[in-house]
């Protein structure tokens, strides 16, 4: 069984990320899962594939931080988070998240919060290879202490 928080080159699967959370000793009423996929288009470009890289030790600590934030915000909710690195083809999964909780509302919120926070603070990058060239995608400046960004992730999670 994979650990709760994992980064690797191997293919991701929903059942694998969901089972890594265990059975909750019967107290859970919901599991919500999310799979992020490589899309064949971005900003009008025809995407051919993506290369992902991570600063792995820091990325795992960022995942731990996200899990701790969730435990504090939604008591009883837990997440498992698996991220793939290396070359990914169209349609393959780059990230798999599962959230378990006694109640479905918290599980949905925790799952959405996790993906929003990954995009804000995990030191992971994708290089997009498209018809006619390639480009590093650059999103947010990673700052785990940026409370405004954290609240925005929470707002999206509870929308």
């Amino acid at each position, binding site marked *: 069984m994979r650990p709760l928080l994992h980064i690797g080159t191997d293919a991701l699967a929903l059942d694998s990320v969901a089972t890594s959370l265990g059975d909750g000793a019967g107290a859970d009423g919901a599991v919500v899962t999310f799979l992020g996929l490589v899309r064949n288009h971005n900003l009008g470009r025809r995407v051919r594939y993506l290369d992902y890289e991570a600063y792995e030790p820091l990325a795992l600590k960022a995942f731990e931080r996200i899990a701790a934030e969730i435990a504090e915000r939604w008591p009883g909710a837990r997440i498992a988070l698996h991220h793939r690195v290396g070359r990914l083809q169209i349609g393959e999964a780059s990230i798999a998240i599962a959230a378990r909780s006694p109640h479905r509302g918290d599980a949905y919120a925790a799952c959405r919060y996790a993906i929003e926070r990954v995009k804000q603070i*995990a030191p992971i990058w994708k290089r997009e290879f498209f018809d006619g060239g390639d480009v590093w*995608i650059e999103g947010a*400046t*990673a700052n785990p202490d940026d409370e405004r960004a954290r609240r925005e992730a929470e707002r999206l999670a509870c929308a």
Partner: protein
Amino acid sequence: MRVTVRLFARLRDIAGTSELARELAPGATIGDVWRQLAGEFPELSQYERSISSAVNADYARMDQVVGDGDEIAFLPPVSGG
């Protein structure tokens, strides 16, 4: 003292390497390391306001003083997920 510098994504492409070693004066900060690198690789300067930094795989501020043997990482804006 001597530190290791790790560069990721486009920063690595600009510098042409993912890892460098640098000699620093005692009391040097992460920001000092960055300015030294930006002097060597002027294209890095465009990231002045958007990079994050880490020491020994923990996020750190640019004014943090570095120690002998530290691993310093410079991170362009992230795009995981």
